[in-house]
């Protein structure tokens, strides 16, 4: 078996699990903290090795520390994911059947939307159509709040999208369940929930990926069809892709 686990690895894993999702710079600080606390060798540039040691021990349990990129700011995040059941059922122990149905429907709205957002009005309109049991709008509002608190959804000005945690944990599931409907980023090739879409050829890109790609270009052009890229990339106005 690969390198053995020390208490520093165990401590790191414990904190990562209780955090649910950990931003990259936090993870690096935590790496240092754990190594110093448990007095094991620390190299600041060896976080990936440190994590892969843990992963080799998690593998038989069908668990993994996975890295994902935030669609908002392009920063790396880490989460402990359960590969044995990557579908929504993993949330089953935390939520009622009714709440899960609301989540699935919300996810449908988000993934089928143009820009990766679903408005609270649209979601709340689903509440009385649930098959499990109808939900009052007030209740649904409360449930949405919990989804945001638990980092399955994130909310901006009354619009909801999938949280980075949700994307890291459910990427495989979403790609297989929604197949062609789920967009992939033309640049990094991973799942793209919030994306900018080319008006002429329809490819999508993550905002941070597009920002990186267009940096320094005076006239942004689509990497695939070379047409003028009409979306507003500075990232302030995410609704630019709606037209």
């Amino acid at each position, binding site marked *: 078996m690969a390198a053995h686990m020390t208490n520093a690895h165990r401590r790191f894993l*414990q904190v990562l699990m209780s955090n649910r999702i950990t931003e990259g710079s936090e993870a690096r600080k935590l790496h240092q903290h754990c190594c110093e606390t448990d007095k094991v060798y620390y190299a600041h540039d060896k976080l990936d090795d440190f994590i892969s040691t843990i992963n080799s021990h998690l593998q038989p349990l069908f668990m993994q520390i996975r890295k994902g990129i935030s669609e908002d700011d392009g920063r790396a995040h880490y989460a402990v994911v359960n590969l044995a059941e990557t579908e929504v059922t993993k949330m089953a122990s935390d939520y009622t059947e009714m709440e899960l149905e609301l989540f699935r429907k919300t996810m449908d709205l988000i993934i089928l939307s143009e820009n990766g957002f679903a408005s609270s009005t649209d979601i709340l309109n689903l509440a009385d159509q649930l098959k499990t049991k109808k939900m009052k709008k007030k209740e649904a509002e409360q449930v949405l709040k919990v989804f945001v608190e638990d980092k399955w959804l994130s909310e901006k000005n009354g619009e909801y999208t999938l949280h980075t945690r949700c994307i890291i944990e459910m990427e495989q599931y979403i790609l297989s369940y929604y197949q062609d409907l789920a967009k992939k980023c033309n640049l990094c090739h991973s799942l793209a929930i919030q994306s900018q879409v080319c008006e002429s050829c329809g490819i999508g890109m993550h905002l941070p990926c597009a920002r990186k790609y267009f940096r320094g270009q005076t006239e942004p052009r689509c990497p695939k069809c070379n047409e003028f890229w009409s979306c507003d990339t500075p990232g302030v106005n995410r609704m630019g892709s709606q037209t």
Partner: protein
Amino acid sequence: MSQRKRSKGLGCSQMTDGEVDCIPTQVERHSQDQVNQKVNELVQFLLVKDQKKIPIKRTDILKNVIWEYKNAYSEIVKKADKILQEVFGLQLVEIDSKRHIYILVNKLLHAEGQHLCRGKEKEKMGLLLVILSFIFMKGNSVKDSTLWEFLHLLRVYPGRQHSVFGDVRKLVTEEFVPGGHPHPLTEPPEFKFQWGPRAEKETSKKDVLNFVAKMQGKEPAFWASQYSEANQGTA
């Protein structure tokens, strides 16, 4: 779930209170792979329960994970505990040997620093430590009214919403208690709080006394009886 179908060829008919009623000779032998699969499932099950700090009953383990593998129960539990220790630094501990209730306790020494728990959790643990200290210093048992008065002094009012803790009474009596922390004795009009089993396992009287001493700027030995009690377990 599919108990009926599964029990067909086996000696076990149904899951009663976790009593093993199989006749050993009639029980199928399970392959090592199948057992290991169950071990992994059990580890996941325990981790989920632990995140919510719910004590785990043996009957729940049997019902949710073990099913027809009852005859391998102790092997599965032992192996799961080994993985929990080696990979996660957690240990499976039976806190009630009559009703067979388990919790996971952290085997890693608590480190000072900001990384132990997230956001609100950290503040809650702070309040918990203060409450545990109070109980210990008051002779290991306090009436609920005494605890509420004490919290009042800290401007944490049980009846009112607190900006960090929310409903404090609920936090103390529902969140801290079922997880096995402070322990109200069930004699209605007046409840008493004591240390629960998790507190006994995850912290020690010595640590708590050291904390109190630090807060008060005194030596732990200043409190003679608590000092000797705290050192009893370790000496």
